[in-house]
């Protein structure tokens, strides 16, 4: 059984910081935004560390909490050795678990936190996720100033950071259940088409989730995938139809929902913050959706292994959220 139900785990609060491009995107209610990619730091990596530090500091301040009120910090990002999260975590002197699931890090951190809260004596857990367009570009693709031509299937890593506080104290977002996905490799090795890499993983996790919890896709007001992008989400729908005979009516992809068409981001946004930014700053604030299934999708991409002619595996984790009145 990959699916788990939670009795009383709540997402109490969230805090978001967004990058300069995301500031003018379709997001509505972010907390703070950056004017430039450096964020008054010397390098882009330091800027990303500062973003994480700022969201953690601010969410604690907003909720009048001190670090001693937090039992565990869980987080991750895209950089090698999740160094950004490690370097921001060292500022807080909190028990810390670092996670890496590429762009599925956010739901993975919710799952780990929810399980700790559900089964152990933990009271309050802080999660943090971030990505920075230029640190990701530099690490996974070409140098920042190198203008390599990109195909229409490429996605654009979003810049931002999100912190959330989870506890057993009731609040307006309930974490109802989750499904842990298994890695799946469908033989795609094109790092410029990560939507196609991740689509089967998202489909498999969605199917497992619905199957194990004996639900229909219509049970949810919204099914939101992480960052398949405009091309990947079409492949996802087609794959679901052919492989699992499932047709989705209320479906959105966060990658597709993040940027405006005029922002020139190819097939849409990607990165670990893409899903939480769209979820918190664009969809939940509408108040329209009550039962939301988020499926974070991560391409477990390694430039080394792709160069060794290996295809890219992908993973997807699902978390069911209930927005209460």
């Amino acid at each position, binding site marked *: 059984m990959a699916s788990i139900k939670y009795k009383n785990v709540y997402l109490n609060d969230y805090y978001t910081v967004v990058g300069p491009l995301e500031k003018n995107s379709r997001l509505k209610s972010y907390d703070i935004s950056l004017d430039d990619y450096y964020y008054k730091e010397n390098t882009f990596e330091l800027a990303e560390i500062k973003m994480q530090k700022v969201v953690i500091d601010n969410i604690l301040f907003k909720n009048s909490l001190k670090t001693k009120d937090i039992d565990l910090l869980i987080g991750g990002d895209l950089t090698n050795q999740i160094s950004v999260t490690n370097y921001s975590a060292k500022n807080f002197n909190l028990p810390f678990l670092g996670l890496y699931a590429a762009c599925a890090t956010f739901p993975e951190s919710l799952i780990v936190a929810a399980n700790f809260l559900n089964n152990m004596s933990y009271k309050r857990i802080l999660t943090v996720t971030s990505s920075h367009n230029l640190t990701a570009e530099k690490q996974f693709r070409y140098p*920042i*100033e*190198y*203008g390599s*031509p*990109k195909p229409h299937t490429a996605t654009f890593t979003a810049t931002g950071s999100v912190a959330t506080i989870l506890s057993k104290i009731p609040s307006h977002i309930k974490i109802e259940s989750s499904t842990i996905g298994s890695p799946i490799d469908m*033989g*795609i090795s094109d790092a410029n*088409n990560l939507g196609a890499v991740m689509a089967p993983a998202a489909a498999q996790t969605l199917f497992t989730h619905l199957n194990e919890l004996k639900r229909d896709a219509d049970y949810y007001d919204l099914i939101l995938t992480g960052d398949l992008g405009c091309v990947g989400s079409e492949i996802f729908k087609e794959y679901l139809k052919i*492989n699992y005979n499932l047709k989705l009516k209320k479906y959105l992809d966060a990658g597709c929902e993040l940027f405006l068409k005029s922002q020139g981001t190819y097939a849409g946004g990607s990165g670990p913050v893409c899903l939480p930014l769209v979820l918190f700053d664009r969809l939940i604030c509408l108040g329209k959706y009550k039962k939301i299934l988020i499926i974070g999708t991560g391409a477990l991409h390694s430039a080394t292994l792709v160069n060794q002619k290996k295809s890219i595996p992908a993973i997807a984790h699902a978390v069911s959220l209930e927005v209460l009145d």
Partner: protein
Amino acid sequence: MNIEEYKKLVKNMSPQENRLKNILVAFFVGGLIGFLGQFFIYFLTESFGISIVEASRWLCLLLILIGTIFTALGFFDTWFSKLKCGLIIPTTGFAHSVASCALDFKKEGLITGLGANFFRLAGSVILYGIISAFFLCVIRVMLIG
């Protein structure tokens, strides 16, 4: 669905690049650079009385200088991604790749950062350029003497 079927599905559903447009853009932009370069060579040979070979060397240096300065000023990557091979194939592409690597790694130290990564993208061009030049020279010596 097996892997082969999935690859086919992905291929069918991924939007195709407009090759004709890319080819035409590259042809005209690359051609324009060549056209201006030819003018520059005429200018040098007529005004300073140097040979065409020498003038071509100066042109090459000018293109590298322009490519590097434009990269450092931060707008060349936008031109590059729009104009594609029109700017990649001339020497501007080489200069752009070296300059962008240098900018990326300058904060990681002169030796471990900038020096070690300077030819990250252009290294292949240099290596295989030298190797093929060597073999072509050998062939030339064997055929012509």
